[in-house]
């Protein structure tokens, strides 16, 4: 099944073309890294796919439905890049906040039941933030905030997970654990995952597709014989050089 299908997409922001003629599809079970320079259009692309920015032209389908008709948002978990920039005075505890992840179209006006709270506790535990569950969200560190958003995404039990640089401030052990979790969700449960990341090793070791965004949008499958250098130069320019060998992934990523 095609989870995301983008055809001839053009997006303007402030009178400038930011996404030019994007064409790609993401299938169920894909694990996709989105890379590209700052200002390249990664966030713009994601927000457009999620129906939050107007298109100049082109079509977007989510779960094989036109974005205009799509309404199964409970299937999607999204963490925006600016998620952690919230008002620190907002009166809510980490646990209350994570429980908001259980909200969705079909659950409107429903009270959370025991199962919901079990899921919340599991997610808190998994992200290692059980001990701060009753702290207010304005009183935790930035890395802890990111863990909290990740817990909120997990608690949705989504089919499609879209993360815009979700772990830039998370410590390496938790990053590794989170990538592992995403891999598990992807392998074992067939979840479709899109992650914006500047961690190229993580992208090429763990993921099966890469989307390079720099106004132009290019998608490639990551295989043994993929021309990684070529892909990266499309996004970062002709002089970009990144040494990468698939065998280096072993040990670095697969030891647990």
């Amino acid at each position, binding site marked *: 099944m095609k989870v995301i299908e983008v055809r001839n997409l053009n997006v303007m922001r402030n009178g400038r073309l930011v996404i030019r003629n994007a064409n790609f599809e993401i299938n169920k079970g894909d694990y996709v890294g989105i890379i590209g320079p700052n200002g390249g259009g990664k966030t713009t692309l994601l927000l457009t796919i999620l129906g*939050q920015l107007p298109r100049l032209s082109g079509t977007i389908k989510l779960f094989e439905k036109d974005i205009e008709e799509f309404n199964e948002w409970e299937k999607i978990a999204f963490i925006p890049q600016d998620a952690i920039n919230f008002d620190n005075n*907002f*009166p*809510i*505890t980490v646990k*209350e906040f994570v429980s*908001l992840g259980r909200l*969705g*179209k079909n659950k*409107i006006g429903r009270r959370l039941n025991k199962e919901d709270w079990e899921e919340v506790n599991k997610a808190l535990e998994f992200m290692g933030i059980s001990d701060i569950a009753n702290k207010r969200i304005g009183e935790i560190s930035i890395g802890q905030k990111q863990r909290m958003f990740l817990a909120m995404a997990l608690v949705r039990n989504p089919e499609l997970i879209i993360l815009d640089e979700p772990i830039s401030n998370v410590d390496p052990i938790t990053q590794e654990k989170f990538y592992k979790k995403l891999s598990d969700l992807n392998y074992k449960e067939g979840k479709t995952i899109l992650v914006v990341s500047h961690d190229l090793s993580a992208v090429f070791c763990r993921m099966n597709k890469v989307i390079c965004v720099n106004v132009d949008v290019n998608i490639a499958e990551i295989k043994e014989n993929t021309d990684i250098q070529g892909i990266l130069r499309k996004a970062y320019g002709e002089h970009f050089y990144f040494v990468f060998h698939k065998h280096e992934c072993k040990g670095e990523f697969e030891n647990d």
Partner: protein
Amino acid sequence: MIELLSYQFFQNAIIGGCLIGIICSWIGLFLVLRRQVMIVDGAAHTAFGGLALGLLLGIDPFITALIIVIISILIINKMKAFTDSAIALMLAIGFSIGLIIISITRGFSIDIFSYLFGSILTISREELLIISIVTIFIAIFLLLFHKELIAITFNERNARIMGIPVDLISNIFNLIIAITIILSIKIVGVILIVALITIPALTALQIKTSFNNTVIISVLIGVIGVILGIFISALYKLATSGVIVFILVSIYAIVYLYSKIEIIKRRTS
């Protein structure tokens, strides 16, 4: 003091005041967090124009006021990029129209005074019944959509992406604001409604606890302020709305000082 309670009008005032106190301080928390309390102030002042219009046309002034308030909230929301200017504009238009109508007719100056500053001791049985029924409906909505309202207040765009029907819930919430303003006119009058909306929530926010506790504390403070205000104003023959607001501000000051002392204590220990 106790014998006051045996009077029907006093019972009506206490019950009606408490119900309005609950609703104002509850929705007030969301408005304070959204930095939108001034919308209430602007809309409440246009209610004054609406009341005068109703009196002029011989229609129930609360109905014309409700319509005008809804329209002004819609306009304020339309001018999103310039919300504060929109509020100032609506406030000025609504109030000046009210003044013009009053100066044309001159006849109903006493009514106008009670609309501006409330007349809680004149709540009738029928009015109390209406306030009670509306309060129940509003409370059911707020309870049912509690988490959705938190999510929308926290981040509207992300709430949309989660599939929450943001527009529907926001529209109902705006309608509730309009109705609350109208119902509050009797209690505190158009000028001081914004205080009943803002101060309990601001006070509760000082306490820095969970969202649910913040709601409960805000509502408790609203109710305490109204009850104490009615009693004290009745005992000393003072303007009720003024006393209510004064007590709310006093509670705020006490909680503020207390929280500062707590911080200093923690630092020194």
